[in-house]
């Protein structure tokens, strides 16, 4: 009798799950939609896929969650969103729904990026990692067969290549009004410093390492005259990638899309001439900046179990490898990143996990956007010679603490 009841209950719950439909919110690229269809095929759980422009995802979610909407069952989060959403009580803690060993397949840093107040709120599905990209032809023409390994070497190589009259620049960073803080974070880490104390929620950038890092950026512009003024208009890695593939920039730090973009004849003038290496270092051998893309379940979801099945499915090594091939996202599971088919198409992923060994965390504290704007403004002021590096960092720290009410 007990057996019959158990079987009936199991059958009933399976039927309930199978009849369920979950709502997933993410971008419109077809591979993500195809993935949702594969999930339905594999589990019988229906997916209502709602797509939105990536730049507006956060706005849509904030509006829905502020209104207590249960419209979405699975959402996309990244490091800074997860902090904001979890602190507002908008996300379901996933560590309570999944066993501890589930998280061991991901790099520790990726899980940490999704952890807020001791709970894990997102399952990492790709890395948007900064790596060092260089134009092999321009480097070879200047007599360099290998990419630079230190920032001082970057200066030497860039000096040999830069020719403003010909519109060729050896090295360029994005110093846009809301973005200059990001390359600064990489330099700061290379100098052995850190940007933020996440335990006490306080800035750490106003340090000896910080001053050295910022002085280096100032020197790139003022002393070595290596960076063009257009750098102050580059408010992200996208516009810099466009300069790189146009063949006018020899070296830059950028995100994984640069490799396929560089080798696409429709978009690029440097097909077959792109190399990827570890980001150069200084005190540390290397340092980077990495956004972690993850799936999460809103607190208001009424289909949490089915949503969890979806999250597990899309973050599985097979699915991550598939998305890596189709969309060029760096998988968060080593087995997927080193999948032969992935390696063949994106050999630079081989270096991604090595790059991740060095500090790379995205700035994801509460009020991260406002803080980044303040720090960027002060960094630009220092680069343009309006104040010293030390003064700029002191001012940035004072303004950030005021913003945080400390």
């Amino acid at each position, binding site marked *: 009798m007990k057996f019959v009841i158990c079987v009936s209950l199991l059958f009933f719950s399976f039927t309930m799950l199978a009849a369920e439909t979950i709502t997933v919110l993410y971008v419109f690229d077809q591979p993500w939609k195809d993935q949702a269809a594969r999930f339905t095929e594999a589990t019988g759980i229906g997916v209502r896929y709602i797509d939105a*422009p*990536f*730049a507006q995802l956060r706005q849509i979610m904030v509006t829905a969650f502020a*209104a207590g909407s249960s419209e979405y069952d699975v959402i996309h989060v990244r490091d800074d969103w997860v902090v904001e959403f979890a602190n507002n009580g908008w996300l379901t803690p996933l560590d309570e729904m999944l066993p501890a060993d589930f998280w061991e397949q991901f790099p520790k840093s990726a899980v940490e990026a999704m952890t807020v107040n001791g709970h894990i709120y997102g399952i990492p599905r790709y890395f948007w990692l900064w790596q060092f990209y260089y134009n092999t032809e321009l480097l070879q023409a200047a007599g360099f067969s290998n990419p630079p390994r230190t920032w001082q070497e970057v200066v030497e190589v860039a000096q040999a290549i830069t020719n403003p009259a010909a519109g060729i620049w050896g090295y360029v960073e994005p110093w846009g009004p809301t973005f200059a803080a990001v390359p600064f974070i990489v330099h700061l880490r290379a100098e052995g410093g850190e940007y933020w104390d996440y335990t006490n929620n306080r800035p750490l950038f106003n340090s000896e390492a910080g001053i050295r890092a910022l002085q280096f950026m100032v020197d790139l512009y003022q002393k070595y005259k290596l960076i063009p003024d257009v750098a102050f208009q580059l408010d992200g890695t*996208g516009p810099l990638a466009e*300069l790189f593939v146009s063949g006018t920039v020899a070296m830059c730090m950028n*995100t994984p899309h640069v490799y396929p*973009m560089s080798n696409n004849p429709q*978009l690029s003038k440097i097909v077959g001439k792109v190399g990827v290496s570890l980001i150069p270092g200084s005190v540390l051998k290397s340092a980077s900046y990495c956004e972690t893309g993850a799936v999460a379940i809103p607190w208001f979801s009424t289909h949490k179990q089915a949503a969890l099945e979806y999250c597990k499915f899309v973050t599985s090594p097979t699915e991550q490898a598939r998305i890596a091939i189709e969309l060029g996202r760096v998988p968060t599971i080593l087995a997927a990143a080193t999948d032969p088919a992935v390696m063949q198409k994106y050999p630079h992923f081989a270096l991604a996990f090595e790059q991740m060994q060095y500090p790379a965390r995205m700035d994801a504290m509460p009020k991260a956007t406002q803080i980044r704007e303040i720090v960027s403004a002060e960094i630009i002021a220092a680069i343009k010679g309006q104040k010293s590096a030390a003064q700029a960092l002191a001012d940035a720290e004072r303004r950030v603490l005021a913003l945080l009410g400390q």
Partner: protein
Amino acid sequence: MKMKAFTRCIIVLVSLMLLLYTTFPFFWLLLSSIKYPVELYSIPPRFFPQRPTLNGYVAVLRDSEFLRSLLNTMIISLAATSIALAIGVLSAYAITRLRFRGKRTLFLSFFITQFIPPIVVLIPLYLIMQKFKLLGSFQGVIATQLTFLMPYVIWLLYGYFVRFPYELEEAALVDGCTRFQALTKVILPLSAPGLISTSIFAFVASWNDFLYALVIGMGHIKTISVKLAEYIGEARIVYELMFPGAIIGTLPVILVALVFQRYIIQGLAEGALRG
């Protein structure tokens, strides 16, 4: 005589410069829409395309979702404009002609709502639409758009109605017309330029709406502005589709403006004199 010719010359020159200044971005967009992406990234930028291509246009016009978004925008803009105009005419007439307590406050409140940023009312509107199960529907997007279209329409029409000779309306009333008949048979036909220019401004405002279409439309009812924003991806901006898409998305509004340009100018001139 020479002085007059010189002044005329200056006016023409300044007008041409203004024309160039205002149309240059659109002209640049048009040229960019027929360039290959590799040329779009070239430094220094090239003005005219080296090898013009219509590939972007073909790709966009083959995208059923793009065409659907164009149709959605048309449906929403026409419906929102018609409703805003129908209610706006009656409201503006009532505020202009009828005497009732709080009339001035009511008009001012319409006026003030135009200064409220849409983002401020987004969450309350979302809640209301959620309550009435209108999220992700045409009705929901149209209803939210009316929150900014209605005050705009009422404010514009008030400018036309307030200076409309009362004697004409009075004559109609004396001849046996009701107030509604006086409005529909005397005032509205004579206010045609004002009505048309108001409709066009409302239509354009609705066509360009992004925030409400994005959040209330919830991806189900995608308008052209939302569709164009999708080309700004996480990795790169797909200029080769975005630019042709923007040109195609602008064409209906340009056509409407060209067809009714006489009324727009007349309406603007009268509104300026009357308002």
